[in-house]
């Protein structure tokens, strides 16, 4: 999305890239709106991939909001999603409330658990939070499996749909709306004074503390916000797929989100969103092609994650950004539109 | 023994040393003096291999040591006692000394070296089983020097042994260095305590903003106008 000033290193003086980024964002949004009408995306299968891609894109963005800015890995992200999903599913099933009401309620429960986890672990070293969120996730998973009266355990809980249609297209636009809203809200937070504090803390906790910032407050706030968003996505997941099993909370689901977030580029928000579409769709196609090797795509995720960590810590966003800078610098006039249409291609085609 | 020629060095964004020339002969006791931030610590860290020289040569006994990893420099016989001591807080004094003697394979030699440093610092001997993390500031400095002495280095780099110490422990530390020097160890000392240091050492360099601005024997510098004005408050 709105780009360059979210780079820690970027300076306000870089007007050019900023405008470039804005144009790129507008183009990308237009492309994502028009995409379902371009073959092969007109088919229901492909539109289902698009919904899944938008969902994982939003998840990766909210994940990046903590991982990329305060350097805390929420290793239980999927479990917070699952908590939101189960909350909404159970309330809708039991009390017959509208699934739309599930969104704030799912956000609330996931946010509250995030707040408690954050309060407990975020005053300790960052790794405590990563590991504790993992523990909490496994405990939630255990609860979802064992409390069969409420969740039906591994059998899965049938959930009423969000929309009165089987068509994937409306779901896609709902999820795309959620994705764009997530990006806009989180980008605004990051660009505010609060976001400045996040970045200061993420880069150097001690220095931030010395300059009078109370890190715990900001850390907990950031973590809670991200978890609440996870809850929202979980609600969509539940009411879109129509069935919830405890597996949605599993570590491998978190790792999928995490891999996309880091491959997309930490600390950019838009990077994970842009990379999620081609990656998720490629993985789905791979799964269909190589149904005899269902584990292969995870090997690829693992390998990509390792390569990114080692050689390109700023991920795809970093690559795109440096391309953008280069394009912006070369032709003195008319750089805007030409550069913009070239910049987003890696994300838009696929 | 140690020869720095045209050494430039510094950190990622900041060059600290500019064309530093410095020489220490076998058996000499030499000091580097200068104001805060002049680059004294950086000089020692560059010699010891913690900071890489960007330019120039550093020779020890005729061989270049530029680019060697710190532990390699240490194994050549250059002991380094840092400003912050870098003790092993969770180990006893005795164990700190044993780690100091890591490169010594001969057990008897280690034992006799332990006896020697305990003789030099009786206070450490009294507390040899106390954890280094619970020692007082003065005791820490003593232990840091003692640990640096364990492999019997031929050259000892000592960074501000008086830092944070009251006058009496400072004198004790200087006394220990003097004894060491008299026993034949070559010492390169960094100090802020100009007056005492100049009375103690054979020669000294004055470093300002990363450049050597003055050089001379102790008495020479003590009688130098600039030194008197800038450092002795005369």
């Amino acid at each position, binding site marked *: 999305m709105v780009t360059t000033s979210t780079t820690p290193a970027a300076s306000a003086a870089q007007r050019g890239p900023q405008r470039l980024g804005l144009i790129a964002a507008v183009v990308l949004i237009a492309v994502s709106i028009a995409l379902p009408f371009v073959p092969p995306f007109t088919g229901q299968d492909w539109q289902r991939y698009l919904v899944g891609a938008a969902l994982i894109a939003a998840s990766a963005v909210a994940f990046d909001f903590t991982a990329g800015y305060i350097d805390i890995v929420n290793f239980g992200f999927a479990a917070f999603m699952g908590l939101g999903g189960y909350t909404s599913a159970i309330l809708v099933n039991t009390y017959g409330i509208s699934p739309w009401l599930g969104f704030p309620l799912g956000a609330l429960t996931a946010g509250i658990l995030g707040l408690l986890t954050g309060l407990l672990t975020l005053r300790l070293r960052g790794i405590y939070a*990563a*590991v*504790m969120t993992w*523990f909490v996730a496994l405990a939630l998973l255990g609860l979802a499996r*064992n409390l069969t009266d409420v969740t039906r355990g591994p059998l899965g809980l049938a959930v009423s749909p969000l929309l009165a249609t089987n068509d994937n297209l409306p779901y896609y636009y709902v999820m795309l709306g959620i994705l764009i809203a997530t990006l806009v809200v989180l980008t605004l937070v990051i660009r505010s004074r609060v976001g400045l504090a996040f970045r200061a803390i993420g880069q150097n906790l001690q220095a931030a503390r010395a300059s009078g910032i109370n890190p715990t407050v900001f850390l907990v706030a950031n973590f809670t916000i991200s978890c609440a968003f996870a809850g929202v996505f979980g609600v969509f997941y539940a009411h879109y797929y129509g069935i919830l099993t405890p597996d949605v909370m599993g570590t*491998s689901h978190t*790792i999928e989100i995490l891999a996309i977030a*880091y491959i997309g580029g930490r600390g950019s928000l838009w990077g994970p969103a842009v990379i999620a579409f081609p990656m998720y769709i490629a993985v789905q196609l791979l799964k269909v092609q190589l149904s005899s090797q269902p584990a292969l795509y995870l090997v690829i995720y693992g390998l990509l994650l390792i390569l990114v960590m080692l050689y390109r*810590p700023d991920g795809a966003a970093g690559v795109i950004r440096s391309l953008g800078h280069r394009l912006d610098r070369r032709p003195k006039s008319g750089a805007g539109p030409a550069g913009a249409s070239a910049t987003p291609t890696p994300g838009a085609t696929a | 023994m140690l020869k720095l020629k045209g050494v430039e060095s510094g950190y990622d964004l900041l060059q600290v040393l500019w064309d530093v020339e410095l020489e220490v002969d076998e058996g000499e006791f030499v000091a580097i003096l200068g104001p805060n931030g002049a680059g004294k610590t950086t000089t020692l860290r560059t010699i010891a291999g913690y900071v890489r020289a960007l330019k120039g040569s550093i020779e020890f006994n005729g061989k270049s040591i530029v680019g060697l990893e710190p532990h390699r420099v240490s194994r050549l016989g250059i*002991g380094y006692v840092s400003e912050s001591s870098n003790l092993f807080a969770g180990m006893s004094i005795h164990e700190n000394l044993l780690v100091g003697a890591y490169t010594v394979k001969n057990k008897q030699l280690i034992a006799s070296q332990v006896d020697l440093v305990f003789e030099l610092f009786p206070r450490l001997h009294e507390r040899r089983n106390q954890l280094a993390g619970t020692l007082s500031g003065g005791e820490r400095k003593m232990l840091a020097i003692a640990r640096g002495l364990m492999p019997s280095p031929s050259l000892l780099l000592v960074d501000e042994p008086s830092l944070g110490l009251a006058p009496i422990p400072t004198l004790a530390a200087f006394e220990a260095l003097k004894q060491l020097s008299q026993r034949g160890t070559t010492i390169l000392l960094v100090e802020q305590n100009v007056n005492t240091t100049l009375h103690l050492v054979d020669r000294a360099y004055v470093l300002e903003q990363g450049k050597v601005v003055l050089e001379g024997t102790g008495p020479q510098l003590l009688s130098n106008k600039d030194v008197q004005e800038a450092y002795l408050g005369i």
Partner: protein
Amino acid sequence: MTTATATNLKQVPLLRRYLNLTSAILVVAAAAMIVVSIQNPSLLVNTLATGGMWALMAGGLALVFGVMNIPSFVHGDLFMVGTLVALFVFTPIQSMIQDAPNDFVLKWLGPFAGMILAFILGAVIGVLMELLLFRQLRRRSREQWVMNTFLLTAGLSIMFENVAMMAFGNLPQGISRYWDVPPIDVLGVPVAMDRLVTFIVAMGTLAVFALFLQRSRTGRAMRAVSMDETGAQMAGIGLTRIYQLTLALSCGLAALAGAVLIWLTPFTPTVGASPLLIAWYVVILAGLGNVQGAVVGAFLVAMVQQLTGYYLALNWVDVLPTGIIILVLLFKPSGLFGSEVKGVWEQ
């Protein structure tokens, strides 16, 4: 908790220092164990056998964190590699034993071949990990090292598990027992030979591990690096070698645990998930990077697991420890044995 006190015997200061919540918990745990083991001795046997193996896992995990600041997520996969090695080495040995049932050397010592090879292979993988991953990352940047290495090991873990799945499938493959002999009578309680050997191997390895860290020149150097890298370099200790040794030792121990425990946990691609989780429980409970505390904590967690499994139900085994850890973190944020003086093996 006989082993816990045995480890602490020499360290009276340690006991005195923690004569509060920690020792209260240890005393309660010991009491609970005594009561339970009178009722049901097999619980005690299981606690000691599995606790010993968790101690090897957790000890290695704590060591890598203490020395290299790497919170390893791939530790469980070395356990998995260990089960694989045991499987492939012991299966032919087993048929050799069947062919020559009177060859006592083969029968009694044969099973150890897989365990030893597992340790060696684990160690080799550890060294490779240092060479191919951590050294590269260290060269690039040490910024955000802890999180980056965590993610690196997470990526590695996905690869290990899914490559194993592609190569060996999803189904459990195990060895029902290493020693086909009747149970042995230990103080009136019949104990299966495998359980007994598991316990003995665990205790023996832990003793060697502890002696190595405390008394040997290299072990001391490892602890020195964990406390102050610069200080260690001043003493002429090369960090690279210590890093390699640390990873070799830690990964070797995890693989050894997998090989020894295969009678209990047959190979599947994700067999390491639970040991990894337990090792992390222990390490968080004991305080990050504290190997000694991790060893004690491993027996505590093994006991909680056995008690939960026995009195509640097996599927709560993973839920309850989280509750306990949350309580511990509330009252003692740095873990039961954490203190201001940080080190791999506190005195």
